[in-house]
């Protein structure tokens, strides 16, 4: 009996539970805030569940909106977790190696949110099993959304496996270096590219929506993810360094910031390339971009968001371009927040809504998210933050040695 409970994994789980239930005042205030947010989300969803998706701002002309925008943004965040994995495992760069686990924890949280956003967006959540691999009846190879479900599930399983194995290994005071583990880690790199590419292809493959039907879409998805994902990572790592005594070397931060500077440049360049092509050609395809940046027929809901995103993106790039400002914690964090805002808008409503506006029949339906959509989305971000808080709390305790296996003792304590 004691052999079973003394096994490292149950010990690890019990240790984690003890960590989750004990903590500082700030920790519990934070938990309470998240639970409140989740409660708001549940209340919002109860309205949507009762009335149907009519409680959102969506209608036939604009049939995807804030939910699917957030989904898209978060797929990027999940994919960008590999920006920590590549230097750690491909180049064996020590300062990042242990932080890679936190990247995987972020990926797990982001994918959980992605799945929730899809769940709240579909009309028949009761039939979601129809879309699950093996259980349902997936329309592969032709449906990109079916592929998206497959790759997201694989990516989730890979990251769960890798993070759990690595943490339990560190917990047992060993290094995580079994061959299978390294293969899993390496497999997660192409899978990260896959999840974001396939998500881009869901939009990209629709020739009736010229705003999305540009071959630059998938590359733009990837490169913007390499801006936003690490930005979240950097902010979180610094918070964790302060609040959870995470051992974080400045070189690690600088390295990530340098990679982000390249990504930001390419991101702006790609955006400029698309803007040039559309404006210089001046076909009726330009309408969608016009709606985004200037509005059409007096409907201008997206205009302030579009310009905020563009200006924030440029400002963040300038801050990250110069080594002095990207090594200064204040400007570094400002840059992170700016690029996050920029990409959150760009890969959210500013991607989804102009694709539908004007509609295929030329209608300009002005979408903006309803209160219900905002509440439900807040709740889902709350769930993601809760998942990250709990998982990272255990992970950090393992990384800095507070949570370690106890040698088996014959007498129970």
């Amino acid at each position: 009996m004691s052999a079973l409970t003394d096994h490292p994994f149950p010990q690890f789980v019990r240790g984690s539970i003890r960590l989750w239930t004990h903590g500082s005042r700030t920790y519990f205030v934070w938990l309470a805030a998240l639970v409140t947010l989740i409660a708001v989300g549940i209340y919002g969803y109860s309205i949507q569940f009762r009335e149907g998706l009519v409680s959102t701002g969506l209608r036939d002309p604009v049939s995807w909106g804030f939910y699917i925008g957030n989904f898209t943004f978060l797929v990027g965040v999940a994919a960008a977790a590999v920006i920590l994995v590549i230097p750690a495992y491909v180049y064996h760069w020590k300062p990042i190696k242990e932080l890679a686990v936190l990247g995987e924890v972020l990926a797990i949280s982001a994918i959980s949110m992605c799945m929730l956003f899809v769940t709240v967006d579909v009309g028949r959540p009761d039939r979601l099993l129809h879309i699950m691999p093996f259980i349902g009846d997936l329309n592969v190879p032709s449906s990109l959304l079916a592929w998206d479900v497959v790759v997201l599930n694989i990516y989730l399983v890979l990251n769960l496996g890798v993070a759990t194995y690595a943490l339990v290994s560190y917990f047992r005071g060993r290094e995580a270096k079994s061959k299978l583990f390294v293969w899993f880690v390496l497999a997660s790199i192409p899978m990260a590219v896959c999840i974001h590419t396939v998500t881009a292809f869901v939009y990209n493959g629709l020739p009736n929506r010229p705003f999305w039907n540009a071959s630059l879409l998938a590359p733009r998805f990837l490169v913007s993810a390499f801006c936003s994902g690490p930005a979240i990572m950097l902010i979180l790592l610094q918070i964790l360094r302060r609040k959870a005594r995470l051992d974080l070397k400045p070189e690690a931060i600088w390295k990530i910031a340098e990679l982000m500077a390249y990504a930001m440049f390419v991101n702006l360049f790609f955006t400029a390339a698309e803007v040039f092509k559309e404006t210089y050609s001046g076909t009726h395809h330009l309408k969608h971009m016009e709606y985004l940046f200037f509005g059409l027929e007096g409907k201008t809901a997206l205009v302030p968001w579009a310009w905020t995103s563009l200006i924030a993106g440029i400002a963040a790039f300038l801050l990250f371009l110069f080594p002095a400002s990207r090594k200064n914690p204040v400007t570094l964090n400002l840059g992170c927040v700016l690029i996050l805002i920029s990409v959150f808008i760009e890969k959210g409503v500013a991607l989804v809504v102009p694709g539908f506006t004007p509609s295929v029949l030329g209608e300009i339906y002005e979408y903006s998210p309803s209160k219900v959509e905002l509440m439900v989305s807040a709740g889902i971000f709350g769930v993601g933050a809760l998942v990250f808080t709990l998982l990272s709390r255990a992970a950090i305790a393992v990384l800095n040695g507070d949570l370690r296996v106890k040698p088996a003792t014959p007498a129970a304590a």
Partner: protein
Amino acid sequence: MTLSRRTFLKTAAVSTAVVTTAAACGDRAAALREFMHTRLRAMTPDEVKAFCARIEKECAEKYGKPVRVGAEGPIPGVIFGYGLDLSRCNGNRKCVEACVEENNQSRPSPDGPHHNPIQWITVLEMDEEAGIDLERSTAYYTPDKVPAPGKAYIPIQCQQCDNPPCVKVCPVKATWMEPDGIVVIDYDQCIGCRCCMSACPYGARHFNWSEPHLPASEVNTEMHVLGNRPRMRGVVEKCTFCIQRTRNGLYPACHDACPTGARVFGNLLDPESEIRRLLATKKVFVLKSELGTHPKFFYFYSV
């Protein structure tokens, strides 16, 4: 070899357990099948019949009158095609009304909780001199008299593409093209992800944003399982060329309702049909031909 009492009891206990578990699993499996819904296309004819009977029963209870839910299959040697004479269309929207009545679409109920009116045909009004320019059209015209001076009209419904982009994107095989060319939806398989609505170049697919509002007095009781049977909240629906009528030798409701005689319907495979005569004698065009969807809905100008 004699069977000891102990072995006997053991065997009996084990077999009882196995049988009960199997029975329980059998029940569960049936419940699970119900929950999962076998796709209509994967059902045997008997299962389809039972399924239709179930919908008939549900509808009879809900609307308080007997309904018939048919599952007529495609007629061999038939592919349906549609023609529309833009010279004759004057924007009266009788086709829209007839379609809503025939196909049990959700009716407007501005004061009720389920205001979710659905129309499968959209008639657009444009300036006559601009030609067909969807960007400068409106579906929300309210004239005293049609046609309004200087205006032209184009009704748009499902174009029954021969290469339907909506079918390609559906993640759960809930929509497909039948052998007679009609693109249909399995309303019980649809998960409501709305990929097909993003993919459709003609705005032909419509979503049940709330519980459909269909007063019992307005129910059309002649139904088809892939057509005008009442839909549920959260699924997509569209024009089926009135599958419940056309597979039984009738014209679509919009065809019969058109007061100007702008609509032509028939079997594309029959050289003697009206639609073939139209294709042989008039120059026709399809909407958004550059997208490669190959619609089976042809527009033309007779004058």
